């Protein structure tokens, strides 16, 4: 059911390459050699049980969590550690890291809007102070992004005056205002009341159709099935299964994915059961 989108075949550089990523918190191995490649304009959803390392994986992609081994390459550029430094890994200077992070948008489950700034203030803050845009330019672009998420009318409101769904859409606009090349979403609808989930998913759907490269950690199986090009199932720090959504949902090959999907189905949540019963 996903719209066939124009793939950027001319670009040989993958949007993201992750090789043998290892990460542990103390004794707790959270990522155990994860490898993943995402092409430009691809939409990848990541699903998996709680504690399987999905959030940690996203946090490693923009190096908000340093990893222990392996490499992450975003648009052809290594992030976190300097490449080819032999046996000892050298952490890259903060300045360089900040430059790389500008191009990676991330949206969190807790929207994390800046409460002391207006909606527009939230959206123009980084473009002005990080990208160095003029105020006028940033406002013009910021308004565009707010319009896109349907919240231009709220530009002068403060985050506390908005519903959860609206706040989350502002958070998406804030990330988009930096013109990122890759967008990460970490369970962005999980904190929302059920009736507010739709508006946020619709925004993400539009974004996907416009060709944004997206990695979406989600529990919304309908979204995974309808919008993504690829579904990745993670369990216990590993990518267990990866494939086209229609194939994955109708015919999962791995026992653990089967068990996971069965458990979801058993819960009789409308979005999930419909995702699995309606044929793709």
């Amino acid at each position: 059911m996903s719209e066939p989108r124009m793939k950027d075949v001319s670009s040989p550089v993958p949007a993201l390459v992750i090789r043998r990523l290892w990460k542990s918190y103390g004794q707790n191995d959270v990522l155990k050699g994860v490898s993943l490649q995402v092409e430009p304009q691809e939409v990848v959803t990541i699903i998996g049980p709680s504690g399987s390392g999905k959030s940690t994986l996203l946090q490693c992609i923009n190096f908000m969590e340093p990893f222990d081994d392996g490499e992450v390459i975003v648009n052809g550029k290594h992030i976190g550690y300097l490449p080819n430094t032999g046996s000892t890994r050298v952490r890259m200077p903060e300045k360089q890291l900040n430059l790389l992070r500008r191009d990676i948008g991330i949206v969190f489950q807790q929207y994390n809007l800046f409460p002391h700034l207006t909606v527009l203030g939230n959206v123009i803050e980084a473009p002005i102070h990080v990208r160095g845009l003029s105020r006028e330019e940033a406002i013009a672009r910021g308004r565009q992004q707010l319009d896109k998420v349907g919240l231009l009318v709220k530009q002068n409101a403060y985050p506390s005056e908005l519903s959860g769904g609206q706040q989350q859409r502002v958070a998406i606009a804030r990330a988009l205002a930096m013109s990122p090349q890759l967008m990460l979403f970490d369970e962005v609808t999980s904190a929302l009341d059920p009736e507010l989930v739709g508006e946020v998913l619709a925004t993400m759907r539009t974004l996907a159709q416009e060709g944004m490269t997206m990695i979406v950690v989600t529990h919304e199986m309908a979204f995974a099935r309808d919008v993504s090009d690829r579904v990745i199932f993670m369990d216990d720090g590993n990518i267990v299964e990866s494939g086209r959504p229609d194939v994955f949902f109708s015919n999962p090959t791995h026992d653990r994915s089967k068990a996971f999907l069965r458990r979801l189905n058993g819960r009789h949540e409308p979005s999930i059961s419909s995702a699995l019963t309606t044929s793709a």
Partner: protein
Amino acid sequence: MDFQFDIFLASLPSLLRGAATTASLAIVSIVIGAAIGLIGGICRVSRRAVLRYPVILYVTVMRGVPLLVTLMFLYYGLPSAGILLEPVTVAIIALAAVNGAYVTEIVRGGIQSIDPGQMRAARSLGMSYSLAMQRIILPQASRRVLPPITNESLTLLKNTALVSTITLSDLLRSGLEVMTWKANTFSPFAGVALIYLLMTLPLVWLNSFLEKRYRLR
């Protein structure tokens, strides 16, 4: 009770001169203390040990040693080490240092009370640590720290009375002088207490204004 209105009136000019000294000492120490506290608080939450540990030491010392002892040490103790300081200098150093220590703790608490998600969101947008501090964390923390800092300033204002022990003619000492001169204790002391009270009122009002204002959002 030996309250005599004429003595009270006669003591006023002298008391007001003392009050001016007290007020200027307080204002200078509050301003310097706030500056120390801001820098101290930021260093206190730094990941760098070279910034963090000296501040921890400073705060511990200033909070643990009575202000009176600090004053006396600087005024009577340092000269034996060959360092002679004016009483005013001693008073300002001691008051600003102790105020700075308390404000440091307030600022640290204010910064740490901000949801870590704020820093994460800011850094994820590509902001440097210091830019995120400046633009995202401190503006939010300032709303929370201003009321307690006002409160601390009030305490400091009253603690200035201790400088009378190092020969400074502040409000308290002026009162004591009038007392000896007029051989009447009650009247000048009523004046002293009243003037302290009047000087603290603006801070009390500021405090409740700030608390009300920042409760709103």
